């Protein structure tokens, strides 16, 4: 037996918490006596249990602590006193107050931004009345041998089965994306994009109609519901019920006008077309329209009936999938439900509608904000504890007058919270600035976020201030509450304030490590990003202007453009490679007539004969397209080296590969040229097999203009004028290739900007904190310095003495931060990029050096001042 058995601590703590002080001591003793007795009789476990039960049983009216109005009153009165002393302290120590308030305000403004972002994402789709019962049917598509895909879209067949076979579904609706056409209203033509939706759309979702009957608006074929904005654009007013809009040869009747879609909605539309029209225009003509495996552009949403369960519906969906999959070869389609509220803030799905952010991104953002706020809290903790010498007298007096430990604890917590609230005021101003900058960071951000103030967000702001204050104030409060009143009064210097120096060192090292990690991350990230932009793609993108076409044959435009002196050459292409979009075909290759052949997905671009010269693709063998066939009759094909490698054509020799035939989409095409490998996808991915097909004209594709770099402005003006003559409906969409590539990597530049900003904040806060510490240390050591000086110490020697400690701390921080950042990039972040830049020494060390230099200048200036002070004056003044 090494120790007596003890009753459960928590139970005792609970008893102490609720029990009246007068009754507590003997009651605790009684229970202990019984506990010891029970240990002997029933064993330790039973005894502990009994003790717990007894403690709970004693929770009776006569034992519970009375809440005395007088105690409240004292607290209330003391609150005033706390407030006053805190205010005086704030004013007296202007430097420390400044460091604390600025640090907290700056860091909290980031926190406010993250709160606003989270708040926005969480309130997505909140305006639907049945939001808790709306689910989206999502699809898992598994192709044998390929990676599976999760899709937000489903087949129309799913919706049809849902109608017949699934109990517990109150309503369901089908949406189909991708309507795009030119709306003719009278003499005018407007480009219009729309969404098909069936008649239950307004039953499932809450999109109020200003005019028209929501129950029948989308029932008949060729019905059209416009939003108010679209109605104004087309007609100039919103009283358009019953009017017709002409698309090509079909007249659509307007059956409703919907209020404009709210900002925070994952479904956005300018116009809704009845799904019956999709059935009439496409469903009756296209073969696969209603197929079970046509899962690419339709969305099914349903509302659960009030007492329905998702489990039952999931079972029914599983059964439907099993039945329908029997008819499929080599692939499987399975369905599941996704709650409406998980759409904006949920997992990644292909073909997703609207904005989406993964919770992990938010956690990372929140984590970064947390770390920054924590850094500012460290400042507060550090400076308060360091200054404890000056306030220990006050604590001593309070304690002697009768303050409990808890009172002192409360006082310092309240003080910290007060400072946090003061910081909140400033940080709100900063937040307003920050919000504007954030929204301007990327053109997509204002589409996703509004960042308006709302009741929950304001409450969260206040909660943030309180929590920050409590975190910042906790350690100082504990420290002050432990001060012994007597020793504080008798001899303040006897207080061992340097006892906590270890803690302060740890906090400073943590702050600096953080700052260094941030700045190294920024610089390395920036160099990687620059690397992406300047990556040798295998072809040139310089001075190429890509113009998007809208379905019209561009022969006339091409002729006009070619007459502009600044335009040297023009080509056609169906897409712009290397900016993220990809199109592919299943291609079959038979080495000989007898072999079964091999097929693979090959990425494709359809181009004309000018494309290769303009982009300076290097041909390893063969030549450019020679024939100029009509659409659909081409016979030539140019491939890259990866295609030869994939099919092992001609022993991968570009020369021998010429003349081999690939079957693309049922067409036999002969390889006439082999290109050097180039990047068709983004640099994140490995180079894959790509082929170029021939087409004279791509009405939905792009014109690629090689522009002379001189006098760009007038050339652009002329191109604009030519476009206006050519197409009066659509605005010109022309972008330089280099800008498009920059756009494709905009997420990286955004990330670099965000991290860079955080790095800036972290450094500011850490520097402020260090500054405060240096000022404090030199101040307290002023007398020591003077004596040393009198005894003959040199100024550099004194400076070294004062700096030494801080410099060691910075060195430790750098030793932790730099390897950590290197490993983070080398082993985690950069592993998903196929072509990455080496991590350079300048990027790693550059930031660290700047931060160190900043810190050294600061420490140096302060210590130099102290070392240069006149010892006679200082020693005399005491």
């Amino acid at each position, binding site marked *: 037996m090494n120790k007596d058995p003890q009753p459960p601590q928590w139970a005792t703590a609970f008893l102490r918490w609720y029990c009246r002080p007068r*009754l507590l*001591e*003997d*009651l*605790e*003793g*009684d*229970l*202990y*006596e*019984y506990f*010891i007795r029970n240990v002997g009789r029933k064993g330790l476990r039973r005894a502990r249990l009994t003790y717990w039960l*007894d403690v709970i*049983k*004693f929770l*009776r009216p*006569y034992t519970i602590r009375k809440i005395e109005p007088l105690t409240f009153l004292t607290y209330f009165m003391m609150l005033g006193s706390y407030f006053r002393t805190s205010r005086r302290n704030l004013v007296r120590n202007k430097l420390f107050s400044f460091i604390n308030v600025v640090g907290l305000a700056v860091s909290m403004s980031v926190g406010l931004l993250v709160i606003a972002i989270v708040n926005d994402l969480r309130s997505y789709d909140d305006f639907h009345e049945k939001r808790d019962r709306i689910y989206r049917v999502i699809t898992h598509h598994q192709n044998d041998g390929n990676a599976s895909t999760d899709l937000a879209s489903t087949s129309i067949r799913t919706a049809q089965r849902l109608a017949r076979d699934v109990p517990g579904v109150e309503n369901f609706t089908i949406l189909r994306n991708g309507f795009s056409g030119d709306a003719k209203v009278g003499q005018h033509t407007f480009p219009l994009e729309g969404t098909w939706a069936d008649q239950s759309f307004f039953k499932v979702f809450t999109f109020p109609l200003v005019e028209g009957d929501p129950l029948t608006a989308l029932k008949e074929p060729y019905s059209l519901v416009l939003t108010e904005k679209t109605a104004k654009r087309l007609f100039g007013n919103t009283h358009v019920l019953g009017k017709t809009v002409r698309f090509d040869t079909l007249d659509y009747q307007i059956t409703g006008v919907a209020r404009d879609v709210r900002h925070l909605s994952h479904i956005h539309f300018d116009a809704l077309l009845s799904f019956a029209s999709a059935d009439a225009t496409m469903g009756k003509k296209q073969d696969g329209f209603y197929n079970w495996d046509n899962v690419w552009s339709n969305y099914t949403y349903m509302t659960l009936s009030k007492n329905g369960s998702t489990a039952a519906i999931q079972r029914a969906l599983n059964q439907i999938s099993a039945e329908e999959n029997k008819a499929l070869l080599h692939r499987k389609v399975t369905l599941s439900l996704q709650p409406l509220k998980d759409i904006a803030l949920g997992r990644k799905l292909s073909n997703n509608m609207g904005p989406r952010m993964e919770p992990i991104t938010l956690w990372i953002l929140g984590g970064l904000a947390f770390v920054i706020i924590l850094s500012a809290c460290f400042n507060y903790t550090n400076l308060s504890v360091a200054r404890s010498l000056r306030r220990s007298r006050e604590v001593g007096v309070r304690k002697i007058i009768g303050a409990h430990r808890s009172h002192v604890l409360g006082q310092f917590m309240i003080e910290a919270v007060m400072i946090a609230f003061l910081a909140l005021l400033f940080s709100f101003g900063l937040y307003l600035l920050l919000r504007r900058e954030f929204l301007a960071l990327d053109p997509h951000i204002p589409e996703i976020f509004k960042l308006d103030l709302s009741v929950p967000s304001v409450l969260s702001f206040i909660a943030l201030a309180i929590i920050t204050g409590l975190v910042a104030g906790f350690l100082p409060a504990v420290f002050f509450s432990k001060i012994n009143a007597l020793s504080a009064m008798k001899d303040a210097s006897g207080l061992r304030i340097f006892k906590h120096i270890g803690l302060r060192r740890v906090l400073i090292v943590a702050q600096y490590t953080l700052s260094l990690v941030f700045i190294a991350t920024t610089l390395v990230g920036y160099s990687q990003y620059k690397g992406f932009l300047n990556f040798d793609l295998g072809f040139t993108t310089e001075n190429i202007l890509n113009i998007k076409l809208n379905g019209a044959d561009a022969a006339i435009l091409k002729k006009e453009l070619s007459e502009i002196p600044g335009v040297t050459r023009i080509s056609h292409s169906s897409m712009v490679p290397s900016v993220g979009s990809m199109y592919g075909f299943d291609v079959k290759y038979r080495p000989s007539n007898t072999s079964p052949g091999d097929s693979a997905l090959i990425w494709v671009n359809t181009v004309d004969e000018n494309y290769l010269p303009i982009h300076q693709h290097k041909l390893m063998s063969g030549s450019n397209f020679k024939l100029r066939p009509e659409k659909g009759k081409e016979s030539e094909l140019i491939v890259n080296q990866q295609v030869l490698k994939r099919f092992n054509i001609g022993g991968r020799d570009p020369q021998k590969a010429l003349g081999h035939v690939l079957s693309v989409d049922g067409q036999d095409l002969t390889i006439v040229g082999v290109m050097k490998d180039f990047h068709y996808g983004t640099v994140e991915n490995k180079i894959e097999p790509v082929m170029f097909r021939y087409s004279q004209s791509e009405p939905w594709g792009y014109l690629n203009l090689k522009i002379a770099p001189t006098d760009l402005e007038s050339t652009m003006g002329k191109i604009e004028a030519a476009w206006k003559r050519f197409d009066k409906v659509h605005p010109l969409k022309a972008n330089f290739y280099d800008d498009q590539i920059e756009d494709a990597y905009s997420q990286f530049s955004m990330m670099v900007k965000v991290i860079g900003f955080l790095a800036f904040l972290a450094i500011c806060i850490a520097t402020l904190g260090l500054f405060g510490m240096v000022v404090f240390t030199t101040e307290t050591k002023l007398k020591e310095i003077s004596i040393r000086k009198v005894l003959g110490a040199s100024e550099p020697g004194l400076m070294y003495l004062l700096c030494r400690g801080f410099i060691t701390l910075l060195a430790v921080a750098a030793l932790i931060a730099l390897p950590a950042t290197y490993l983070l990039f080398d082993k985690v972040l950069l592993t998903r990029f196929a072509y990455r830049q080496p991590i350079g020494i300048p990027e790693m060390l550059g930031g660290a050096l700047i931060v160190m230099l900043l810190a050294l200048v600061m420490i140096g200036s302060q210590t130099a001042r102290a070392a240069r002070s006149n010892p006679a004056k200082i020693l005399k003044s005491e």
Partner: protein
Amino acid sequence: MKGTNLGEFEELVLLTIAALSTEAYSVAICDELERYTGRSAKLGVVHAVLNRLEEKGLAKSHLGDASATRGGKRKRFYEVTHAGKVALMRAKELREAIWRNIPGFNLEGSI
């Protein structure tokens, strides 16, 4: 303040306090009661009664010295106040008065 009427259990507890004289603290009272009545006396019940007796002014308490056996916690010793003694006497007299008025009551006859 409630009246000074004694409930039956209150009376028993008060008597036990008197019987234990200087050793009357809650655990001892419980044990003593158990010994007299043969029923288990729960600390919770006894504690509540002690508290009530004190409130009525029938008993008073003071804290004794600390002892190691109770985890360093002091015992609260109870003693019967003058009012308590009066109440006990009154209860006893009341009973005896009624007893005296029962004619020919003896245990043997009832068997």
